């Protein structure tokens, strides 16, 4: 029974099952063949195309467009997957507006880029619909590599190594592989359990074993891994969340946004998932937007993103900001949390306006209180569980070249490694490149 949007507190069933189902369908529905042909035809087949340089995995975009134009979406898909084995997920989650599509010359010409992301999805979906796996393994090398973490970086690394003939064991702490593809990415970007389907499809290459419940620092250690395997790749992401400094932060109803998002992704019945009537999300990145939009889609009446700096400084792209706004999320900028008020459970949040001069952020003293029965903290994730002895660069694992850490025989990539944006596509690129380097090392 739907309780309705007006029910106070954090409750489930604000919307009917039908409303929820329609809310959580694909943000961008897949292209039909004719739509895809027309959309791909817009590609100019640029020389040394800028979109390719703008893609962290350097997919040969004009070539795959041409395959679509020529009526072979599967060939297009193979072109994509050869560079980016998670091309299917990237097609859904890449902030294309700041990557390939931003660089598209038609963006410059008419403000309407070729729809690279959607066409990439069309192409990779055609390959996956065929069921078969387009890549073969090279002759066995007899080497075995340990990959820690089954997120995009780990999966990309494992697949490339398996393809090159090595055996791979992926150690994953969570019950399911996929990393944030499974537990983080917005539900309306990855529908129909796509993350697991993609992992299953990827595993068809053979030679990869995934051991879930295998936790580095608990059930396994880097020393042990280094002894038992020919090389180690660390792709443990950012398992911790940054601490928020404000009063009353321990009240009920205050929690990390990533946990909330993970609950949404793992929910078997969205109607059973509780959400506040008045939700305030602290932060300004993609996670903040995802959490805010999801709250709205679950039926929260008022959802506000509170970000301490100006709009331009937000981690979420303009497109993502507009996405939030179009769902009725209010974005407040230049406000920072002072305290959460309420008797045991959150009821209000007190925000202070800020001004930044010369990069220095200071509170102006002016405060505002918003009703808030649920407060989601989306102020960034942080490295957690990195093995002792590894050199760090800031808060991440320091790497040189293609992911070489300070310890010989140990590589790292994805969110846990320094350098690059924290994006799925960057994680894939780093995993793949580390695999090539590991391969070069093992076969030298």
């Amino acid at each position, binding site marked *: 029974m739907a309780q309705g949007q007006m029910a106070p507190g954090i409750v489930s069933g604000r919307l009917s099952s039908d409303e929820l189902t329609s809310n959580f369908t694909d943000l961008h529905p897949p292209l039909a063949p004719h739509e895809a042909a027309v959309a791909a*035809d817009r590609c100019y087949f640029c*020389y040394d*195309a800028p979109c390719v340089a703008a893609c962290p995995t350097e997919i040969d975009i004009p070539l795959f467009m041409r395959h679509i134009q020529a009526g072979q979406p599967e060939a297009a898909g193979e072109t994509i997957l050869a560079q980016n084995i998670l091309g299917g997920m990237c097609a859904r989650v890449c902030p294309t507006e700041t990557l390939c599509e931003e660089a598209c010359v*038609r963006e410059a010409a008419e403000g309407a880029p070729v729809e690279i992301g959607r066409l990439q999805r069309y192409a990779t979906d055609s390959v996956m619909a065929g069921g078969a796996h387009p890549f073969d393994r090279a002759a066995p090398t007899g080497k075995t590599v340990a990959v820690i973490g089954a997120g995009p970086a780990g999966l990309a690394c494992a697949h490339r190594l398996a393809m090159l003939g090595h055996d791979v064991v992926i150690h994953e702490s969570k019950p399911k592989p996929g990393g944030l593809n499974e537990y983080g990415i917005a539900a309306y970007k990855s529908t129909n359990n796509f993350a697991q389907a993609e992992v299953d499809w990827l595993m068809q290459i053979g030679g990869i074993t995934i051991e879930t419940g295998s936790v580095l620092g608990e059930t396994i250690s880097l020393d042990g891994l280094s002894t038992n395997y020919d090389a180690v790749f660390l792709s443990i992401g950012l398992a911790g969340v940054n601490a928020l400094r404000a009063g009353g932060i321990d009240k009920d109803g205050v929690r990390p946004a990533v946990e909330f998002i993970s609950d949404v992704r793992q929910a078997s019945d969205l109607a059973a998932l509780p959400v506040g009537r008045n939700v305030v999300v602290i932060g300004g990145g993609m996670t903040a937007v995802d959490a805010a939009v999801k709250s709205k889609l679950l039926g929260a009446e008022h959802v506000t993103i509170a970000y301490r700096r100006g709009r331009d400084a937000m981690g979420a792209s303009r497109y993502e900001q507009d996405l939030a706004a179009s769902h009725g999320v209010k974005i407040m900028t230049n406000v920072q949390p002072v305290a959460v008020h309420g008797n045991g459970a959150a009821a209000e949040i007190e925000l202070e306006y800020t001004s930044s001069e010369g990069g220095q952020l200071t509170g102006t003293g002016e405060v505002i209180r918003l009703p808030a029965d649920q407060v989601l903290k989306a102020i960034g994730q942080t490295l957690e569980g990195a093995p002792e002895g590894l050199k760090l660069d800031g808060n991440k694992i320091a790497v040189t070249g293609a992911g070489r850490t300070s310890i010989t025989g140990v590589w790292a990539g994805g969110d846990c490694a320094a350098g690059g944006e924290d994006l799925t596509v960057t994680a894939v690129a780093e995993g793949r490149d580390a695999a090539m380097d590991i391969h070069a090392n093992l076969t030298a």
Partner: protein
Amino acid sequence: MADLKTNFLGIESPNPYWLASAPPTDKEYNVRRAFEAGWGGVVWKTLGSEGPPVVNVNGPRYGAIYGADRRLLGLNNIELITDRPLEVNLEEMARVKADYPDRALIASIMVPCEEEAWKAILPRVAETGADGIELNFGCPHGMSERGMGSAVGQVPEYIEMVTRWCKKYYDRPVIVKLTPNITDIRKPAEAAKNGGADAVSLINTINSITSVNLDTFSPEPSIDGKGSHGGYCGPAVKPIALSMVSEISRAQATHGLPISGIGGVTTWRDAAEFMALGCGTVQVCTAAMTYGFKIIDELTAGLSKWMDEKGYKDVSEIVGLAVPNVTDWQYLNLNYVAKAKIDQDQCIKCGRCYAACEDTSHQAISMSEDRVFEVMDDECVACNLCVDVCPVDGCISMEPMAAGEVDPRTGREVQPNYANWTTHPNNPMAKAAE
């Protein structure tokens, strides 16, 4: 609004747009609808001799070539002449002409290449009140195998002979429709003229196979696994038609012979181009078959608007305006030197000009690290390929060099005078300039 009233061979029509002899003009029902929509005239679907009519295939008759978004660029057909009895067609023609006296109604005819056959049909056509006849010497399939259509159109002597019979047994204008499936279009046109034709119309369709099915290996359109070449028409054939029309317009033997232009007319602009090359009317088929009769509204309004802008009052003023500018290659001015110029403000940095020039032309465009593309005047031969491949209209232009400037490619000064190949020193046959 410029008046589009047209007088072609004394046949009047409210505008120069006639529907070509084809499925759109196959019967009274269509033709009435076309006239209601505003078409200036029709050439009725080709009539055959008395007796059992021809039969068509019962599978697909058409095949197509598409551009982006399935825009139909070329259409191919294996349809024959009318498959309805002669009597029925004649009755319908008479009725329609009586109801639409201000529209042109032309009878297209294809009967065997025997004088008796023509002698028999012509008086019956005359009775309908049709304004003239068009001899179908163009159909490239089916009928040609029976010694008609393009089988006649490919032999100038037959054209002349049949035209002569027609002039003998029919007293209204005779238009000879020419096939493009021939090496030199001037020969059949001349033959038609010699036979007494009042005009020629061209082009009929071009022999074609639109595609091959890669599963069955049958040409398309496929009839039970086999295909046959058909007649190609639509926007794709327009350049071929324009060239053939221009040949007839400027040849000494046929200069001034009235022409009804056919071949891919899709918008008013195509019509204006055909007319500028010497056509008194244009015939439309594929565009109507693709979009329906309503396109006549754009065709007429567009032509009229353009004429207003240019100050033309009568369509006859446009006819032939471009003919004096069609010449042979050998007479082109070799002292004319142009260079490509890229407008950097309009450039979207796709690099297509660079790829085209670098891979396939003269290596005359440079590309910088930050994707600035510039023409190297010392390599540019002004081939125009960059202009043709640039996706931005007007971004690259060909700018002529002024006399007296030094062409950095050749190191020679641009000469003010006109000079062509006939007098060029590299030409072994050159005649000294007089």
